[in-house]
């Protein structure tokens, strides 16, 4: 599949508008990135800043049609940060393997699941480990 190289426009799809997802969306939107944020529950979008300039989609991102409507084939970055590890893992793989998205990031609460994804080119962020590291920095 031939991909267009967008130099300055990152078209970013974020799945999950919880505390992490919404914060991320606000940060990226303020940096002029083009954002689409997907969440199963419309109420979650209330966490977005009033100045959020992007698209919101209320749907279950695990369904192929939803990702297609979100134009995932044109995405430069896909970030899956729902509060369910397995959902994040599945979406990350769909983004990487089926749509060849250059940058795919998944949030994993359970660090032991990371082993599967190291070889697939999916960046996994484990808040549990990061928090522990940050906290230990203030102690050590």
């Amino acid at each position, binding site marked *: 599949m031939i991909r267009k190289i967008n130099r300055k426009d990152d078209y970013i799809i974020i799945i999950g508008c919880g505390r992490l997802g919404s914060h991320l969306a606000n940060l990226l939107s303020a940096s002029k990135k083009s954002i689409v944020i997907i969440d199963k529950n419309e109420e979650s979008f209330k966490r977005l800043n009033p100045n959020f300039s992007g698209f919101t989609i209320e749907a279950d991102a*695990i369904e192929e049609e939803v990702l297609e409507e979100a134009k995932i084939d044109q995405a430069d970055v896909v970030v899956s940060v729902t509060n369910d590890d397995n959902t994040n893992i599945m979406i990350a*793989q769909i983004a990487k393997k089926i749509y060849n998205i250059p940058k795919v990031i998944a949030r994993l609460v359970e660090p032991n699941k990371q*082993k*599967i994804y190291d070889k697939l080119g999916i960046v996994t962020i484990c808040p549990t480990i990061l928090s522990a590291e940050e906290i230990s920095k203030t102690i050590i």
Partner: protein
Amino acid sequence: MNIIIIGGREKTNFLVKSFISKGYNVTVINEDYELCKKLSRKYKANFIYGDGTKPYVLEDAGIAYSNILIALIPKDQDNLVVCQLAKKVYGVDKTFATVNDPKNVELFKKFGIDTVISTTSIISSLIEQRIFIDDISNLVPIEEGKVALMELEIHPDYPIAGKKLKDINLPDQSIIGCIIRKDDAVIPKGDSEMLVGDKLIVFSLPDVQSEVLKIITGKIE
């Protein structure tokens, strides 16, 4: 043969029964405490009460020694993760998963799961062909539904009761593979007679299933 079954309810019960009768070692991981308790009283198998998508639970269940993992968890993505952990991290030979979304059949196979069955597709294809499930005592899809295996008991009012195999006009893409008569399994030949009470094991391609049933049971729709 060491088999792990994760999730599922009634299916788990029957699978455990079937595998134990074949002499396999079975471990069940389930989040339903009552189910674990009930089944552990019935069967000589290992029961682990817990979340099978967590690596430490899988390790407790002896996944390192398992040959086969069957994932029957309600959410498709959970089955995906469990099977991938099994294959890629613990080296389990074969993984089976059921999925709700038919689109996930192709998807999961691309992600490395050996066999994926969509119960939705089977049920909807049955409804499309307007097959009534009472007539079939057992329906096993083979190769993800590419071939259907049906087990039917011959009732007195069936048109084929008393007929010989050679006189029955089954469609080309179907065959009566086996007759079970009082615990004996017989591979039928042209002269074999279909008796009331016989259990027929019929193989057919899905698109002629309803025709096969019509010919055997005489019931239209």
